[in-house]
């Protein structure tokens, strides 16, 4: 089976360490899928390229074609990898703006792998205190391992001498494998047709 995974990245710079983490999580997911004999296709939604259009959509309610393509990619994917930089203790505004434009219920039951980056490891719990509540509201199925990468993590391979935190590559690998486990258990996402979401009047008025 081929699964489609959308990768949302809210990094603001180019190059971006957030994008870097997102790519690593995507690769880990593809490898974990291959190890299980499944193909995973990745579609990246880089929010910085549509930042202005996202604000316009929020203000006017009108989604431009690129915003509409981005929300559709995410809401129809079999799973989502969502990665944001941590600003002022939480996901950044761009990340929240995007998920504010996703329809209520559109991610319900969708497996989601969370990632976050920051300048220092002091923000490492932001995934648990900020991102998880947001995705709990969206009723997404969040993968147990969230991957936080501080700038220093990109320079670590193997175990740190000073503490017993698993290094980034191991955490990324574990998270990808967990996402694939859940993806296989859930199967392909059944996307609800918004234009079929009604009750026939025969039935509604008790005449059917």
């Amino acid at each position, binding site marked *: 089976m081929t699964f489609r995974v959308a990768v949302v990245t809210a990094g603001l710079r180019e190059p971006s360490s957030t994008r870097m983490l997102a790519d690593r999580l995507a690769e880990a997911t593809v490898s974990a899928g291959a190890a299980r004999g499944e193909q995973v296709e990745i579609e990246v939604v880089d929010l910085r390229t549509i930042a202005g259009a996202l604000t316009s959509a929020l203000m006017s309610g009108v989604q431009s074609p690129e915003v509409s393509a981005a929300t559709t990619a995410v809401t129809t994917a079999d799973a989502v990898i969502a990665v944001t930089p941590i600003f002022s203790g939480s996901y950044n505004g761009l990340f929240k703006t995007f998920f504010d434009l996703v329809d209520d219920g559109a991610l319900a039951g969708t497996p989601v792998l969370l990632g976050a980056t920051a300048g220092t490891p002091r923000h490492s719990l932001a995934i648990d205190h900020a991102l998880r509540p947001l995705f709990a509201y969206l009723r997404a199925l969040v993968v147990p391992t969230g991957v936080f990468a501080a700038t220093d993590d990109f320079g670590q391979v193997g175990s740190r001498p000073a503490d017993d935190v698993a290094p980034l590559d191991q955490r990324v690998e574990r998270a990808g494998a967990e996402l694939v486990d859940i993806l296989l258990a859930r199967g392909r996402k059944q996307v609800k047709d918004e234009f079929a979401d*009604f009750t026939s009047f025969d039935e509604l008025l008790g005449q059917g």
Partner: protein
Amino acid sequence: MQFGVFSVSDLTVDPTTGRAPSEAERIKAIVTIATKAEEVGLDVFALGEHHNPPFVSSSPTTTLAHIAARTTRLQLSTATTLITTNDPVRIAEDYAMLQHLADGRVDLMLGRGNTGPVYPWFGQDIRNGIELAVENYALLHRLWREDVVDWQGRFRTPLQSFTSTPRPLDGVPPFVWHGSIRSPQIAEQAAYYGDGFFHNNIFWNIEHTARMVELYRERFEHYGHGRADQAIVGLGGQVYMHKDSQQAVREFRPFFDVAPVYGHGPSLEEFTEATPLTVGSPQQVIDRYASMREHVGDYQRQLFLIDHAGLPLKTVLDQLDILGEDVVPVLRKEMAIGRPAHVPDAPTHASLVAAAGGGRDATVYAEGDDVTGASPEASRAEEVVTP
């Protein structure tokens, strides 16, 4: 094919002068706009219903009755009538009254409103929006078709032996359009009753509009009201015109940039690409709107929004002149090309009377009076029981 304008009745500061009209000025301006619409040869004027500033039109039947008295040909409609928070009994009464005064030149567009607090202000719960629209319309539909109604529902006091007066003119209720942007349930409702479906697409791309209309057409046929391409479809629209298209953009941009709802958001260029808003020469408006039927099929009613965002009355009247002289006559011809003969026009009172096999006096007379207490129901019985 009917062409017209609709007003949401907003009181907005004119950004070029810093001045907002008073309520008195705006209310009179709405009447002037409506009478001008008839004068320039448009077919329809539709007025919104709102219950909060910056809107002035809380009582559309009062305004429309006044307009009816000052016009002879113009079809009067609403944009929209709140089927969720109005008592359906009052809608039945108010619009039947208006229908008589306007000699039948009345239809309604039902909607659920766009202001959340209107629900609690009128004692309702916004979470029941769709259920209210379904139940209230089911009652309204009966009140106009049955002289005496016994009824019980979830949202309003039960009715026993109730007669809504006046009865519809010539025994034919006003035509009803159901307006919805995103709710397939409302398209289904319009289809079930064989009523019209109006998609106010001014904030939507045409692909979405086309899907909603397609659903309505499919279900219209499913319920046996005719073929899918015979369903009654209306679209919203928004235009600003000048014979020099660059001048149109220059004039409209200051209004666009700070307009309620979409101001401070997308650029004028982005918004005109994504939505039906067309700012330019009359020919550009003709080209854009003549292409609508490629997406939604041959349709029956096209309404334009032209008087919002603080545009001064004089500008709006100029826009009406352009619509009436340069745009609508051409669009009428364009839309008629290749339109199959079996596609109907929008229903009017005359066409509905003809379809009913002629008009009849539907007056219900009460036997006796308040003192004897006889009911309209009793007046219809063979034998009137007197105390």
